[in-house]
């Protein structure tokens, strides 16, 4: 019981995210002059995770760090990086954690093949069930045939 009380005291305080004052996600001063570059930056930033937030992309987040990451991303694009290079730059800096779209390598392949494999499995099980139920109804036995004839004659 003491353990519970202790836990209660420890966790009685509400756990809320201590977000800094909200700025808006993408600030007007961040927007690049070149619309094509800006579009690329926006598309990329929806796939990058803000590392201090609770599950938000840097495109959505109001945190200062997300702003820094957006600015870094744009700097790389302006410097002439390809999309992949710009993203790799952020991955090198903050780790694989920033990728909302998990890499398709190593054990992550399990994740990526999960959907098709599970689907095939499910369809296989269902097909077996259908086949079992769908076997044709057994032909009538001789006795039944005779009885049927009798009924029809009446």
């Amino acid at each position, binding site marked *: 019981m003491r353990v519970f009380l202790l836990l209660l005291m420890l966790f009685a305080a509400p756990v809320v995210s201590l977000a800094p004052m909200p700025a808006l996600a993408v600030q007007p001063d961040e927007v690049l002059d070149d619309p094509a570059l800006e579009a690329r930056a926006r598309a990329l930033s929806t796939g990058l995770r803000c590392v201090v937030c609770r599950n938000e992309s840097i495109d959505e987040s109001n945190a200062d760090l997300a702003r820094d990451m957006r600015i870094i991303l744009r700097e790389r694009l302006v410097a002439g990086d390809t999309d992949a290079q710009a993203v790799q730059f952020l991955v090198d800096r903050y780790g694989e954690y920033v990728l909302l779209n998990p890499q398709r390598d190593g054990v992550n392949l399990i994740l990526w093949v999960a959907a098709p494999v599970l689907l095939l499995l499910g369809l296989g099980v*269902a097909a077996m*069930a259908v086949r079992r139920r769908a076997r044709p109804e057994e032909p009538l036995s001789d006795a039944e045939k005779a009885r049927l004839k009798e009924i029809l004659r009446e």
Partner: protein
Amino acid sequence: MIVELGHYALILAFALSLIQSVVPLVGAHKGWGDWMAVANPLASAQFALIALSFAALTWAFVTSDFSVALVVDNSHTAKPMIYKISGVWGNHEGSLLLWVLILVLFGACAAWFGGNLPATLQARVLAVQGSIGAAFMAFTIFTSNPFTRMTFPPFDGSDLNPLLQDPGLAFHPPFLYLGYVGLSMAFSFAVAALIEGRVDAAWGRWVRPWTLAAWVFLTIGIALGSWWAYYELGWGGFWFWDPVENASFMPWLFATALLHSAIVVEKRETLKAWTILLAILGFGFSLLGTFIVRSGLLTSVHAFASDPERGVWILIIFAFFMGVALTLFAWRSSAMESKGVFATVSRESAVLLNNVLLAVSSFVIFVGTMWPLVAEMFFDRVLSVGPPFFNAAFTPFMVALAIVLPVGAVLPWKRGNVLKAARSMWGVAVLAVVMGALVWVMQTGGSIMAPIGVVLGVWVVVGALNDLWQRTGRGVFTGRIRRITRLPRADWGKATSHAGLGVTIFAIAAMLGWETEDIRVAHIGQSFVHEGYTLTLTDVRRVEGPNYISTMGFVDVTRDGRMVAELTPEKRVYPAAGMPTTEAAIDYGFFRDVYLALGDPQEGGGWALRTYIKPFANWLWAGCILMALGGLISLSDRRFRVAAGARSTPGIATPAE
């Protein structure tokens, strides 16, 4: 004193639930009628006690009794009354009490309306329901007591998390819980049937309305949560594939599957074992969802009242109930002999395909949600699985489902003919493709997503109407029109729900494909044009609310010189909680929403302002409402009222249509 009464009632209910989970079970096993009969009054008494307990806690919140720790942490005297009440479940302890309240309410319903069930089945159902209640009441009493008093009561509370001070969120958790916990009924029936070793049409007829009710609540709950995220989080997203959202979506997918397969059990007495498994897994995912939400194990934007240590207890409860139920299933499911045979092309097969798609897509979401945890624990890789993965992995399932749905819905039971079904669907398919092509030609640039959404949406909606039309048989037009009005409500419910899904699919595609955005520094008095709308920031003022201070922008929106709306996007600060929130201003329209969010003042003067035009946003939630409405229409079908009322002897099987 009232608070102690509430606490006492909770403990008493726990004691009763222990009795309820053992005595009727023994009674049913030994055939002792008086032991079985104990279950009914116990279930009613538990409901009365928990209701009393919940009322006591509500009373503490309403009167701002700051000697109660929970009230101190989650309330404030200046808070509006509705949020004082919703504050009861806006926290871990209170929301658990709500969970338990709904659980015992469902248990009591099985006692009150279950008089026509076989006595042993009812006793076993109530015993299983009682044991779930016992587990959660123990969890509440021993780890999350909502009635703990303070030694030194403060003068005022520290307020409810401001994000939760919103009408949408006042109703979102109760609906979600009604859905989650409603699935416990299907679970109890499934486990009781496994113990009993028998499943028949009467069982299906009983499980179906309960599942349907739970599904309706879950649908409304999820839609409310999504709508709330849309206007509150400030960038107009409505679904983020966040762990907490997934936690509510997985049981929904299972409930949807169960809903359909229960029909097969009821009408055709086949797919029995499969339906039982779905019922068990559906509630399992509800428990898992509760665990994910309560534990905060996975970081989420929506985690408001999480606590890892106590979450472990929910995991133990989950493991216990799933372990027992699945063991029972492995042991007894072979006893569930199917009566009906069906051909490869038949309504049964179509429902089976629906079930496979829904269940597998739910498992895919499960794998994606848990993968970061698995990868970190076993492979030492700290990574994220976000929307890009879920969109890629989940969307194909829904597309497949939407394509199959209208055809499967018109296939006859037992044995069907694809060509015959296709003949009636031919016109619908052409219409859908033509509409999609038209939209594709008309839109300039833009993604292929929206036209595909149009094709699928039209296909499903018109397909649902076609389904109704086919049900009227042959004959002259006027005769068919007359007959369509006399179709059973279950048919109308089916068509309405299916059409709702079509509307939602279309709306999601349209919104994602056609949304436009404008980010700029708006100066007071200067106008700018976005998508044909002229927007003018006329003023930014400081406004004081009851328990917050707001920076409110005033924006005039005009189109072709006509005033459309005056919108007031806000940024609020709640001093008691020390937290800021953004309050988007939205002009809701039939074809589009104009969505404004105010940012910070800029150094060179002016304010950051984001403008979105969100096409067909309202259709998304309208579609969800249609789905829920279809469920309600189906629930009001005469068959359920008659069947659930007087006769449900296994002998009377519903004739196959």
